């Protein structure tokens, strides 16, 4: 009620959404590409970049969660059926969980494998777990599986945004796009 029907997301919300989206798309590509490489200095460099950018995403997601908890996003359009609303909310919750859990499992995996993460080669990130090979392998599997779940949810997310735009012809996509004023 307090939010007008066609309200936009704030500039902060948009910036965080697209920045994190770009980084995650890049990270998915980088992650799948790097694991197939033969051991080489390049591979070690790419792994480091993957970890550094991943930790950056984690920090941005923490900021984003803090923003989301203290702000209300614009309401969903009136035409949506109850089941569609449930799906939208569930999807968004799942995205927040995955955005948080994927970098976290990456960080924990690195610690368990005995590789500390030193952010951009400068700031050592504390190891939350002691070295434990079996646990490291398990966390690696969790990291990979969560990434596949993320890809599935993202396909649904993008598909839904396009459906809103081209079939329902509502403002669900445009209100997240940069440019228009709040």
């Amino acid at each position: 009620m307090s939010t007008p029907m066609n309200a936009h997301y704030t500039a902060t919300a948009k910036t965080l959404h697209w920045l994190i989206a770009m980084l995650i798309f890049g990270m998915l590509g980088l992650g799948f590409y790097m694991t197939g490489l033969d051991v080489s200095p390049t591979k070690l460099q790419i792994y480091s970049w993957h970890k550094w950018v991943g930790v950056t995403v984690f920090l941005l997601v923490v900021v984003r969660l803090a923003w989301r908890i203290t702000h209300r996003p614009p309401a969903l359009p009136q035409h949506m059926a109850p089941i569609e609303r449930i799906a939208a909310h569930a999807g968004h919750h799942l995205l927040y969980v995955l955005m948080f859990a994927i970098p976290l499992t990456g960080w924990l995996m690195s610690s368990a494998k005995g590789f500390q993460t030193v952010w951009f080669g400068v700031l050592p990130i504390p190891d939350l777990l002691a070295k434990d090979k079996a646990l490291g392998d398990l966390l690696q599997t969790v990291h990979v599986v969560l990434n596949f779940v993320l890809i599935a949810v993202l396909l649904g997310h993008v598909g839904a945004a396009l459906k809103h735009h081209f079939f329902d012809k509502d403002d669900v996509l445009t209100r997240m796009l940069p440019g228009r004023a709040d």
Partner: protein
Amino acid sequence: MKRIALALFSTFAIAASAHAVEYSQVQADQSRIAFGYQQMGVSMDGAFRKFSSQLRFDPAAPQAASATIEVELASIDTGSDEGDEEAARKTWFNTKDFPTARFESTGVKALGGNKYEVAGKLTIKGTTRDVVVPATFAEQGKAGVFEGSLTIKRGDFSVGEGAWKAFDVVANDVVIKFRITAAAK
């Protein structure tokens, strides 16, 4: 008088030699050879699972001590299977042509207290270099424990060739840390 002195002297000599302990029975399960290095600015460590050593050390006569250590390079534990396989390759240790690394002491100097300096020759991958290893000695029950560390440059031994030759990803400095426990004979 002279005879008494001689008798006394020989008693002392016997007592002294009976008292002298020589640590020479290396206990493999109480010994460890590990290493540390920097990779992409991150401290990494590992160890060698297999090595053999011969040791003779009498705290009363350190200058007569000697040590030979031979490390089976293929027994490396880098923390990942991928890393272990990579270390065995031609560009790193080339374990096929150079299966072991060897340290052979040439002289031991007591520095006072429990500190010693062990000079010797270190051979890795066909290259031999003179090194001086600082070490400490401590008696632990019936055994003697030797501990120390030595920083070498991997480039000096051509460990890491080709794409690995630059030190930007894997640093040149490698710290070798050892702890060798030997029982007295």
